[in-house]
């Protein structure tokens, strides 16, 4: 079921089966070119597949935007150990709700993506790590996987090609940190979701210390289309080094929020107006979080930009996970900062001290600030503490907490100042106090 009306401005590549009757069934899938890319990939050498993905300029859709083809090429194919494919379906970056829609509407598309990746790196086993809250999707993916086995698209000697590939779902049980790939692998091994020291990276030491490719759901969805249309055609949909389309999750103060597939590099203001139906009536744009709550916030005057990895990075933020949060002029930025930090303090796994203590102290300070009890010097302290966390934590959760906070303090300092508790001094006359700041 689609939760929002599609937009006429969408470019339907990953979402081309959305809205087809019974879009989740294997019959619909097969009738709409499904599993064709896999058969094509079986005619290609593994290196050719990796090459095509490199040409496509596909970059990871989970957050960091690492080039997917390059990631696959790091897997030592001649390793004697088994190799694994892992789908990151933890989808827990606040403001992100795209992987859910993709899996719901087109579960076989994900299966086919993993099969092609498996062919590329020589894997015979894959896991789809789905956050526990998405229970219905675990059942949904299990049904699709069963269908694929029943029709000979998974298992031994798939369609007589000689390839073996097993795939199963795996459930998380509530932990944002398990979206971080090394913590995800720990969780997949039945442990607490603490991150691992990197290097070594999953490409060489992943699940059970075996070579592993971990990619986001949307990244895998792109793969069959790249094989079908060719890497160059996919690349041409986007901007240089930023291939393809992107699932954007528009939320916040707009008339028509929803998940939309747009060309990589679409203009942000256009996105808000044409696709998102513009701001609520009579309101003005104040700020946008461009890619999930871990990204530095953009002021309205910074929003006239192309939404691709490089352009958003140049503007000082990140394209991240595709979660675009639009805020109008009624938004209280201190309250936003507090809510964001409360999340990271709650979700810090506690493994390393700068993150565990840093997020907790920042939350306390932001709480005081938001409740009119902050001191003027707290504003700089919040900024400084955040900067001291940057790059000094075991995994990027610490950065994810620090980056939006720094941007909020630096770009909306006046709002923090307005909430500072006034300093009272006595003046002449008994029990008289006046505010001096």
């Amino acid at each position: 079921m689609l939760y929002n009306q599609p937009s006429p401005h969408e470019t339907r590549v990953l979402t081309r089966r959305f809205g087809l009757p019974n879009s989740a069934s294997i019959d619909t899938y097969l009738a709409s070119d499904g599993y064709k890319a896999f058969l094509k990939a079986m005619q290609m050498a593994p290196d050719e597949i990796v090459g095509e993905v490199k040409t496509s300029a596909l970059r990871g859709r989970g957050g960091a935007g690492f080039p997917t083809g390059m990631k696959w090429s790091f897997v030592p194919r001649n390793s004697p150990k088994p190799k694994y494919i892992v789908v990151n379906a933890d989808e827990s970056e606040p403001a992100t709700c795209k992987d859910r829609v993709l899996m719901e509407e087109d579960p076989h598309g994900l299966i086919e993506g993993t099969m092609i990746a498996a062919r590329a790196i020589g894997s015979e086993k894959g896991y789809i790590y789905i956050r526990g809250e998405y229970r219905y999707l675990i059942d949904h993916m299990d049904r699709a996987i069963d269908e694929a086995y029943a029709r000979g698209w998974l298992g031994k000697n798939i369609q007589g090609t000689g390839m073996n590939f097993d795939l199963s779902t795996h459930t998380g049980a509530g932990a944002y940190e398990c979206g971080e790939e090394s913590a995800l692998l720990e969780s997949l091994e039945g442990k607490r979701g603490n991150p691992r020291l990197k290097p070594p990276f999953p490409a060489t030491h992943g699940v059970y210390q075996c070579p592993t490719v971990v990619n986001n759901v949307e990244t895998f969805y792109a793969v069959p289309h790249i094989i079908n249309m060719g890497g160059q055609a996919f690349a041409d949909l986007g901007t240089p080094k930023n291939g393809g389309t992107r699932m954007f999750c528009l939320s916040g103060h707009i008339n028509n929020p929803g998940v939309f597939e747009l060309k990589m590099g679409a203009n942000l203001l256009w996105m808000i107006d044409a696709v998102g139906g513009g701001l609520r009536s009579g309101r003005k744009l104040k700020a946008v979080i461009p890619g999930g709550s871990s990204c530095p916030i953009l002021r309205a005057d910074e929003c006239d930009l192309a939404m691709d990895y490089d352009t958003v990075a140049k503007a000082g933020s990140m394209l991240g996970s595709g979660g675009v949060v639009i805020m109008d002029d009624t938004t209280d930025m201190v309250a936003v900062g507090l809510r964001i930090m409360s999340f990271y303090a709650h979700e810090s796994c506690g493994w390393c001290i700068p993150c565990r203590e840093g997020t907790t102290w920042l939350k306390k300070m932001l709480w005081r600030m938001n409740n009119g009890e902050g001191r003027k010097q707290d504003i700089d302290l919040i900024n400084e503490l955040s900067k001291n966390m940057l790059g000094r934590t075991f995994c990027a959760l610490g950065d994810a907490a620090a980056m939006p906070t720094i941007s909020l303090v630096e770009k909306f300092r006046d709002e923090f100042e307005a909430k500072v508790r006034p300093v009272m001094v006595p003046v002449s006359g008994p029990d008289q106090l006046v505010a001096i700041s």
Partner: protein
Amino acid sequence: MNFSPALEARISKILGNYPEDRKRSAVIPLLLFIQDEVGAVTKEVVDEVSHRTGTPRVQVDEVVGFYSMLHRKPIGKYHVQVCTNVSCMLVGGTELYHHAAKKLGIGHKETAADGVFSLEEVECMGACSWAPAVQINYDFHHKVTPEKLDQLLDSLRKIQ
């Protein structure tokens, strides 16, 4: 422990998903699916999962505290989870949470005396574009208004 045939089938399927010497991988899925049937991760559940996965008890026990969906005490028959993260907050998620607390007479992570409802203020649940969002047990509810929530809770109370 004895479980329903459906859960037993699920457990054996899950155990089959991992290599012979890696059954510890099944710990978290088993805890969650068993909790759904039993109502909580009791000491017996920990022992059972430890036994079935061949994992030392302490290694099972230590994950229970880590994952927010696992709980050692039973919660309400209907667990009402209101998201107040940024996308939801911007369009009334916080007010919705307070409304739910008032209506149910309970606070964050509390269960009503009759055991019908429990409440939790939760982090982003992946429904941001259709905010504010509420999950009751595993069911998603999108664009929830206080009135819609009232109707939902009233109808659940009637059928329980």
